């Protein structure tokens, strides 16, 4: 029988849960095999146990095919990433939830893996986590094949103008809304262009882009709820 063994695959742990008395089921996001689940037998006492935590670059080895893959070992993969702190802990939940809901099991996405790794680093390095999250969303959609159009009108092909307002139609793009009677949910051309250049400056721009991305992300989530988003909203209520 062909029992396959994968050695030292770059990976992140997304989630783990108890399985039986002393084992765990570990959901990981790997560079070359996408999202997979492993059974970690006797992990409570294993030498690798202190590596079982999210947000750290790891090398994971496993064996077995199909749905029953057995974890063999976990090692550190280079330097550890400093722990997320404060509100950034909620960002960690958020990007993990997006990866879980928007990628399929066993679908290899080396480029999304890179994006995930860089996003974690940026989260720990940069103060403004909102910007990091918006760019993560933008590139994630891109790599999933749902890239946004931010530089030209999807109907006319004309370049986006800074002072014109647009209506963003999902799976189509921004459309000149000068003749719209409804003025809700319109976005200023300048903000689309800023987002295209990764230059999110100012509260108004951030708010507009956040609202836009929320609508688009929700569309691709197809009714799935993001618990991390609910948690953050609850947190904002009690912490103020």
């Amino acid at each position: 029988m062909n029992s396959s063994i994968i050695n030292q695959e770059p990976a992140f742990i997304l989630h783990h849960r108890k399985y039986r008395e002393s084992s765990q089921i570990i959901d990981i996001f790997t560079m070359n095999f996408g999202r997979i689940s492993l059974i970690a037998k006797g992990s409570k006492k294993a030498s690798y146990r202190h590596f079982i935590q999210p947000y750290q670059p790891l090398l994971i080895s496993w064996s077995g095919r199909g749905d029953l893959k057995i974890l063999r070992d976990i090692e550190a993969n280079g330097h550890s990433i400093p722990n997320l702190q404060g509100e950034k802990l909620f960002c960690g939940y958020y990007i993990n939830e997006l990866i879980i809901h928007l990628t399929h099991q066993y679908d290899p996405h080396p480029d999304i893996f890179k994006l995930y790794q860089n996003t974690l680093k940026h989260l720990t390095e940069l103060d403004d986590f909102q910007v990091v999250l918006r760019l993560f969303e933008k590139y994630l959609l891109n790599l999933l094949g749902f890239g946004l159009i931010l530089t030209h009108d999807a109907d006319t092909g004309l370049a986006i103008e800074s002072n014109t307002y647009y209506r963003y139609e999902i799976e189509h793009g921004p459309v000149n809304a000068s003749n719209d009677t409804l003025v809700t949910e319109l976005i200023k051309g300048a903000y689309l262009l800023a987002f295209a250049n990764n230059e999110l400056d100012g509260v108004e721009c951030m708010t507009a882009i956040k609202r836009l991305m929320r609508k688009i992300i929700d569309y691709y989530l197809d009714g799935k709820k993001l618990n991390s988003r609910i948690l953050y909203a609850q947190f904002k209520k009690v912490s103020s």
Partner: protein
Amino acid sequence: MKNSILQDLINAMKCMPGVGPKSAQRIAYHLLQRDRDGARKMAYTLNEAIEKIGHCVSCRTFSETEKCFICLDETRNNQQLCLVETPANVMSIESTGSFKGKYFVLMGYLSPIDGVGPDELGFDLLEQHFKTQQVRELIFAFSSNIETEATVFYISEMAKKYAIKITRLAQGVPIGGDIEYLDGHTLAHAINQRSNA
């Protein structure tokens, strides 16, 4: 199916942690063959426990009475509130005999992916304690890992407006522990948090 009650019994045994199909069968046969009295007692006690053990309305630990014996104990210090994940953690700390404050049992920690949020962990009730009781110090007695950090952060922010002091368990070299075998994080922490000798 040949013998459905026997099969039901074996299946029922499997709900115990660490008991697989083989052990379940072994336990079922043992009880029927050698220890029917013990089995009867177990069935009765299980039933009693399921019917009568609920959660303490004040600290959420398991309790047969509306409030548990710790919450009812007036000799204990109301100003110190120790936060733990499970009732088993309460028993562990109690067995040391070194804590005389009160507890609050979350029954888990924040884990959005599992659908565990503030509502599931009783944060409302906890905030009621901040408001109405004289809590001066909140002690986090959690397992030390990144996954409980959001819970610590959330509750700390919640406690801010009540001017409550926040502490957490010390981390360092275990008694009888060999420095050679300590992981780097723990050792670094132990060096930073060293105490007067």
